[in-house]
């Protein structure tokens, strides 16, 4: 139903020219066009970061929540009205740093929400500190002598939690990312798309260049998306070759499927004008 233009706001994004976030926004809008999403029935929920500004620039409902908290908000919106199309976005700091707990628990819960992480391996909005996915040794404002920790591996974590849809995209390959987002939305269940997103201002290491030279597509390499062990091996491939695409997919009941409370109609449609509690009062008499 919506055209790309209808989804486009009058205000232009304030991201740095060349930032990978532009590609992600474009891909999201194209995917929404492709799946015929009604803008009024679509909610984009964000955390805080450069990535977190995204909902401002797409003509749907939006909720710009707190740093690291997009997922709890998004899940509750979906549970309250499962006819909505709910998409959560956020940064790597947002989702894998301060939001790590929600991330893991959302995956095991399997509410039908899509999670697109702008993984630029840096804290962008706070002007360049190390992020949970920054590479070891990386020098940033907060690690001027080089980062000591090993990065987290969001794909491996998702597999360890049996997330029902685990994928990685690249902000520099919009058509591919569009496909992934469409697949994710069509998938019934929680979907993670970790997107490699160059931050042209603060990440001098993981540039577009860097990724162009390294990435290859899983779907072109005969990868079996139903095999968790192989997906797990692939998750650790990082260096000369970096896989993108769908790592793993599994059909699982969604959380909503198991709620008799909403099997007839969404929570939001249920009347509350005059809830009869006489039975409850009786219980206490």
């Amino acid at each position, binding site marked *: 139903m919506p055209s790309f233009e209808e989804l486009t706001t009058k*205000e232009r994004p304030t991201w740095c020219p060349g930032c990978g976030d532009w590609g992600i926004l474009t891909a999201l809008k194209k995917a929404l066009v492709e799946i015929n999403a009604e*803008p*009024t*029935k*679509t*909610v984009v*929920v964000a955390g*805080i970061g450069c990535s977190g*500004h995204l*909902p*401002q620039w797409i*003509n*749907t*409902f*939006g*909720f*710009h*929540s*707190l740093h690291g*908290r997009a997922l*709890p*908000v*998004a*899940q*509750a*919106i979906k*549970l*309250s*009205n499962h*006819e*909505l199309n709910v998409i959560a976005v956020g940064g790597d700091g947002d989702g894998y740093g301060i939001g790590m*707990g*929600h991330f*893991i*628990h959302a995956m095991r819960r399997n509410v039908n929400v899509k999670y697109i992480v702008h993984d630029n391996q840096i804290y962008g909005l706070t002007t360049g500190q190390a992020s949970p996915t920054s590479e070891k040794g990386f020098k940033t404002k907060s690690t001027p002598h080089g980062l000591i920790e090993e990065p987290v591996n969001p794909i491996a974590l998702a597999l360890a939690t049996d997330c029902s849809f685990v994928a990685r995209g690249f902000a520099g390959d919009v058509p591919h990312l569009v496909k992934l987002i469409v697949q994710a939305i069509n998938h019934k269940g929680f979907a993670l798309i970790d997107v490699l997103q160059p931050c042209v201002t603060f990440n001098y290491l993981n540039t577009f260049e860097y990724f162009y030279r390294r990435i290859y597509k899983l779907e072109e390499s005969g990868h079996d998306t139903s095999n968790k062990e192989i997906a797990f091996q692939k998750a650790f491939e990082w260096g000369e070759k970096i896989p993108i695409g769908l790592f793993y997919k599994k059909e699982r009941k969604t959380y909503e499927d198991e*709620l*008799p*409370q*909403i099997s007839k109609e969404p*929570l*939001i449609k*249920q009347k*509350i*004008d*005059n*809830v*009869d*509690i*006489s*039975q*409850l*009062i009786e219980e*206490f*008499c």
Partner: protein
Amino acid sequence: MTEFSWKIGGEAGYGIMTSGLIFGKAFVKSGLFAFDTNEYPSLIRGGHNTYTVRVCDEPIFSHSKKIDILVALTKLAVEKHKDEISENGFIIFDQSVFSVSNEEVRDDINLVPIPLTEIATKSGGQAIMRNNVAIGASFALVDYNFEHLVDTINGIFGGKKGEDIAKTNINVAREGYNYVERNFPKFLRSIKISAKKFAKRMYIIGNEAISLGAIRAGCKFYSAYPMTPASSILHFLSSKENDYNIIVKQTEDEIAAIHMAIGASFAGVRSMTGTSGGGFSLMTEALGLAALTETPLVVVLAQRPGPSTGMPTHTEQGDLKFAINASNGEFPRVVVAPGDANECFYETFNAFNIAEKYQIPVIVLTDKFLAESHSTIDPFLSKQLKIDRGMLLTDEKAKQIKDYKRYENTATGVSYRSIPSQIAMFKAATDEHDEYGRLSEEQSDRITQMDKRFRKFKVLESEIDGIKIYGDDDADITIISWGSTKGPILEAMKIFAKKGVKVCFIQVLYLMPFPTTKMKLLIEKRKNKIIIENNKTAQLASLIKEHTGMDIDYKILKYDGRPFTPEDIYEKIDEVLTFAKL
């Protein structure tokens, strides 16, 4: 007025909680009034638990200090509580486990040794049913119709599945009753209480009343993380989730809990979260999110003694100023502190209306004493309650709006709220924004939105009557308090009344917005103003001073983790006033 108090004490894991509930309920079900309170350490087994039930043939609002019958399941219970026993009071104890002599306790105390465990097992029950033997025995002591106990046990365990369990429990209790009749005939009727004209009343704890208030208000989403003393809301609501179509979600932590409640509310569903101090600390950031996005939110904060984990299973009123000031930045909120189970119900219901009418966070502030004590109240008048969703748009209305401004700078500060799927789209943002909800750092937008949000508060102030008054207008003593101290204070007033002292009690129900004008007017000319609070720093007194500039003459404070008894209050007041006269 006749009354008595009964206490059962023993180790955790002895089933004391259920026994206490059965005991009190049996009297309520037959037309009397009961009030109970329990005490237990933060352990699962061992440690010392007690459950106190006060029974009266007239309305009562709290427990009292003296115990007429002590059921001691351990020797420790005797040692700990012998001094609380009233003159000629009774100790029921398991003579096969330990012995008690009058030398150890007091001469006037009547000892009632019973082979509790033996009777339980011999009459077909398990050892743990020894409590029922004691309950039966207690019924004999107060000479109350055993059939009321039968009714209650059937009510609690009954139903198809529980039939057998109920039967065994009743049998066991009856043996206890008979044992006293047979062996201690002289004790019969020494405590007199008899059934009155029957009236249907509820026997309910604060948390259950809150849960009912929420259900009646149309709460459809409750997200929480377990934390004493708020957990029983989670338990109760989840047990009803399918009957009332409520999504009850135990989350990974309190941060997720409050964000989920906000998400649900944004989606248009009435939602609530509940916790205690530590969890509330974790929620403070999101309180501001609700405020800035103007998403309605109800948070129950059931207090327990802090700081930090403090005394997790005890009671205190130490979080008042924290609740009022929690979260960075400045925004209007409502803090309401119910004083009894009745107010728990009605004020929780109101909280949902206020939250939606003003699109702000509302904090319902209780404490362990209120949250977990049963009291006897009239059935809630549920029919008369009206849901008010304020400026929430209907789909039809949404269609008519041109150029929708979610954060329109209106005269009341409240603006139309649409929900996803409606035509009037907007973005809720944690950053400051313009009237449309678009991020803005312009000075003018900032001032407009700050003023808009605070304007609601003005309207609110004029709409809410935050104070309730009890007692005499020309009183000698004016007690000022808030929250769960209400019950013990009302009881203390009965004692004063007997002594012919006139007392007035000002209950501050709404702490924010603070009822400044009314408070000023009320206390300006009073003498002997006394603050009573279950905390160390007299937080209400400091709020009164902050808002009215007035000092309170005396402060009676208790911060040992235990609730006041009416006698405590009476004595302390007497003491400060006598001292003042010297």
